[in-house]
C-alpha cells in the first residue's frame, strides 16, 4: 500500500520562529490534507491541497503532486501552534485517507 512519511518527527521551537514540515508519499493521490491535532484529540483542518500552493494567515502549504511531496510552512510560531501535525492522502484508487505518523511540534514561550 501507499507509504506516507513525515519529517521531522519532533520539532521544538522558540515562539516567533519559522518552521517547515514535510510529507512524502509513495503513490499518486487525489486528495491531500493537512491537519493539526489539538491536545484534546480534535483534528483541525488546515489545508485541502492536492496540488498547488495555499496560504492562510501565518500558515501556507505547497503540494508538488508530480514529485509526491507536500510542505507546510508555519511562520512566527505561537505557543498555540503546539500539537501534532498530520498529513493525510487519499489515493486515486479511492483507498480513503492514509495518515502519516505526524510531526509533534512544541513551541516554547
Amino acid at each position, binding site marked *: 500500500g501507499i507509504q506516507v512519511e513525515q519529517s521531522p518527527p519532533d520539532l521544538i521551537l522558540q515562539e516567533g520562529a519559522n518552521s517547515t514540515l514535510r510529507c512524502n508519499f509513495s503513490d499518486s493521490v487525489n*486528495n491531500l*490534507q493537512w491537519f493539526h491535532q489539538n491536545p484534546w*484529540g*480534535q483534528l483541525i483542518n488546515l489545508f485541502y491541497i492536492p496540488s498547488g500552493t495555499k496560504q492562510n494567515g501565518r500558515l501556507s502549504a505547497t503540494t508538488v503532486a508530480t514529485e509526491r511531496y507536500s510542505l507546510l510552512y508555519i511562520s512566527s510560531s505561537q505557543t498555540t501552534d503546539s500539537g501534532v501535525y*498530520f498529513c493525510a492522502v487519499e489515493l486515486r484508487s*479511492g*483507498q*480513503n*485517507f492514509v495518515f502519516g*505518523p505526524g510531526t509533534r511540534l512544541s513551541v516554547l514561550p
Partner: protein
Amino acid sequence: DAGVTQSPTHLIKTRGQQVTLRCSPKSGHDTVSWYQQALGQGPQFIFQYYEEEERQRGNFPDRFSGHQFPNYSSELNVNALLLGDSALYLCASSAGFFTEAFFGQGTRLTVV
C-alpha cells in the same frame, strides 16, 4: 453549522462487552468514514459509508461493524471488546469522494 458531532465523548467498557459510537455528519455531507487512533499514532481507517452501504473497509476484524441511516448519520459497533480496542475513535464526513473531509472531536474508548 454544527460541523461533525460524535457521541459520547468518553466511554469506559469492560472486556467482552459491546459498544456503539455515533456520528452526525456536517450539513450537506453524505459520506461518513470511521478511524481508530491509538495513543501516539496516526488514525487508521476502519470503514466508509455512502448511500447506507459500506463502500470500503480497512484492515479491521468483523467485530467492527457499522451502519449509515437515511439522514447520513452513522454508527460504529464493536463487539467482544478487547483491551487493545482502547483508542480514540474519529468520524469524518465529506460530500462524496475526493473532497475535503472534516473530523469530529472523537470518542475516547477505554476498555478495562
